[in-house]
């Protein structure tokens, strides 16, 4: 195993809302948006570490914080032994030369008022490398190397296509001979055919110049194509990290599995495959779920030890519980649908809502508990309804926050191997609670 070039340890980037002077005067609570919430990993010399995740999971914030384009709210980054957030003066200058970024947007990443040559030589000009003529010569060489022609040096960005612009952006990142390049979704704005060309260029240059890449993308096939190892991000956290082939062939975390499952395959079996997509939306990073952040959408949500319901049924009940807890069920509208403005026929209300919320056949005990909760809802007591369900259907996933253990292919899920302190917390949670009576009060 080669040495790590970049080590990220517990990196946090929170944004605070309600943080203006007026908010402080009125005593509004400071609300944290946890864009990056305690991320640790390392990038080894010469490798490509891919980072995947849905939009809004904090990938780009991670890249920008790692490059110190934003100051972190916690954690540290070490680059070749130097703590990046403590560098200043010449040391910071050196870091800015050794680490570069290539950006996502082929349009806004190049200054529309500069020529290709000016853009590529900008890092050289900033660090005062070479004379004007030398820089221009270097820009011409780089243009050729990234597959453009040297006589395009005086053209403006708008005269290039998206793929060509990304090549210029890449040439700019390479101009000052960096060791480490952060590629922030470098091909996601390009056509598929052009994507492959640019990816091959990235791979070729890496081999030629011994570059280390941190490759950020949301497209799994792109990441698989170029990465040696892959980290999967969800809601500001890394949920699984490991060698590319292992991640794709043997995913451990339910989120990774679901993500891989949702990719359409070019296969004749594909017609019949039922694509089990991930349900719901990514929760807001303002108010992330307690415990495991993926639990609100997880198909493998862990049942409490006293429960033995079919997984699909348990999942439906959990989702129904979330709706009640979030106040997403409008009791008034439901009564109107039932057609009983006097609100006397509770049985009709219960049947109506139950039929709407549940496709699965619930075991009798569970059906009883759910109906009891709906009856409470019909009486307008949302709190009691939520409590009834919470008592019986709480999951260890909402109480215990899984962590990423050490190792070559760890995943942050209670179903898998967890660090000792997480296992201990889980045992404590399970021991702390007696199994509730089975629907005792429901009949």
């Amino acid at each position, binding site marked *: 195993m080669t040495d790590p070039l970049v080590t990220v340890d517990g990196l946090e980037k929170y944004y605070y809302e309600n943080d203006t002077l007026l908010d402080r005067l009125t005593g509004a609570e400071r609300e944290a948006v946890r864009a990056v919430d305690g991320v640790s990993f390392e990038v080894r010399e010469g490798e490509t570490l891919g980072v995947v995740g849905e939009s809004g999971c904090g990938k780009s914030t991670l890249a*920008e914080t790692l*490059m110190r384009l934003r100051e972190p709210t916690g954690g540290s980054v070490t680059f070749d032994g130097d703590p990046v957030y403590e560098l200043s003066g010449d040391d910071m200058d050196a870091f800015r030369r050794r680490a570069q*970024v290539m950006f996502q*947007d082929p349009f806004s990443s190049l200054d529309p*008022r500069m020529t290709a040559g000016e853009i590529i030589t*900008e890092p050289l000009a*900033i660090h005062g490398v070479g004379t004007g003529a030398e820089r221009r010569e270097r820009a011409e060489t780089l243009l050729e190397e990234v597959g453009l022609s040297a006589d395009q040096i005086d053209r403006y960005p*708008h005269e290039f296509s998206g793929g060509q612009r990304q090549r210029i952006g890449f040439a700019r990142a390479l101009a000052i001979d960096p060791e480490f390049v952060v590629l922030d979704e470098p091909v996601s704005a390009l056509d598929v055919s052009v994507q492959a060309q640019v990816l091959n260029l990235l791979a070729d240059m890496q081999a030629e110049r011994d570059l280390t890449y941190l490759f950020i993308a949301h497209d799994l096939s792109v990441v698989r194509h170029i990465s040696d190892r892959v980290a999967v991000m969800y809601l500001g956290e890394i949920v699984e990290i490991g060698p590319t082939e292992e991640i794709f062939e043997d995913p451990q975390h339910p989120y990774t599995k679901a993500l891989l499952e949702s990719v359409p395959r070019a296969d004749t079996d594909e017609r019949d495959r039922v694509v089990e997509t991930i349900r719901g939306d990514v929760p807001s990073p303002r108010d992330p779920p307690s415990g495991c952040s993926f639990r609100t959408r997880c198909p493998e949500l862990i049942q409490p030890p006293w429960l033995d319901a079919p997984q699909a049924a348990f999942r439906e009940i959990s989702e129904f519980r979330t709706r009640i807890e979030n106040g997403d069920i409008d009791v008034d509208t439901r009564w109107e649908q039932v057609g009983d403005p006097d609100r006397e026929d509770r049985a009709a209300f219960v049947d109506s809502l139950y039929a709407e919320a549940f496709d699965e056949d619930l075991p009798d005990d569970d059906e009883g508990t759910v109906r009891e909760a709906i009856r409470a809802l019909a009486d307008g007591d949302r709190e009691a309804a939520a409590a009834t369900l919470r008592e019986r259907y709480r999951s260890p996933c909402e109480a215990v926050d899984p962590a990423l253990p050490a190792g070559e292919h760890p995943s942050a899920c209670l179903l898998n191997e967890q660090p000792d302190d997480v296992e201990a917390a889980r045992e404590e949670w399970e021991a702390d609670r007696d199994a509730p009576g089975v629907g005792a009060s429901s009949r």
Partner: protein
Amino acid sequence: MISPRTLRNLRSELSRSLLAKLGIAILAVILFTALFAPLLAPHDPTDQNLDNANVPPLGFTATENQTTSQMVDGEVQIVEEEVVVNTTAEHPLGTDSLGRDVLSRTMFGARTSLLVGLLGTSIAVVLGVTVGITAGYYGGRIDDALMRFADVMLAFPSLVLAIALIGLWGQASWRIPDPLVALGIASSEMPEHVVLPGTVIVVVALVNWVWFARVARGEALSVRDQEYVKAARSMGGSDLHVILKHVLPNSLTPILVLATIQIAAIILLESSLSFLGFSGAQLSWGFDIAQGRQYLSSSWWIATVPGLAIVAAVIGINLIGDWLRDALDPGIEGQGGAP
């Protein structure tokens, strides 16, 4: 900083727009007149001749009440009669109440207006853009402080603020020898000096810089978040580098357009100040309008001719502003100018 593409857009927009050509033509005539006023003007604009007062422009007639006394049968009789004042080719646009040539005065007046308009706008641009870009680029507390100050400036009516500042500082002005006269190119009968109304220039700039600060801040705010700015910072570019190389060039277009509009506004403001007698300039469109105001019923041309000059200058500059706005619009930028 002006790319070939920008020039192309400017040219194609110019060839398309009749109004743009008109605007350039008007401004060119005014500029030319202002520069070569001592050569072009038929008379010394300050030369008084009471025998020739209130002469109407060519093609018009005017009557004047004349009171004469004569001896009739040993008694003095006072006769009031209406006399027709004849136009003369010597004063094609007539003369004012002191017999000064209106055409010459209007030609020389263009100098004051353009000097104040251009210099005042330049100072306002430098001041406003510096403040605005600093506020927009750094944001946060700096932005709050600078922009609240700008808002306070905006709260004052510009004319009132200008008068207050002039009252505070007095009417400093410099007399600069006119090179055309000094070198003997123009007739030595022409005024030897150009008056540079210093206080007025500074004051109109201080009254108008806020608009540039507002626009520059907005531009800087949007440019700041562009990926090329992040890229420059990730390469180690200093704030100064980022501002000079990226933020400023990419903010200039709307500032340029605003500047043309502000030149017109500043010319109007200078005229207002002269009209009210606060500018200290004795040879200015606004001053002449103020002078002619009391003769408006009998000798309308004294105020009307410089008034039309102001209208022409403002329209011309605004047309050029429209042309720049259309040609530099990012919407058509990048297409290299469609035919």
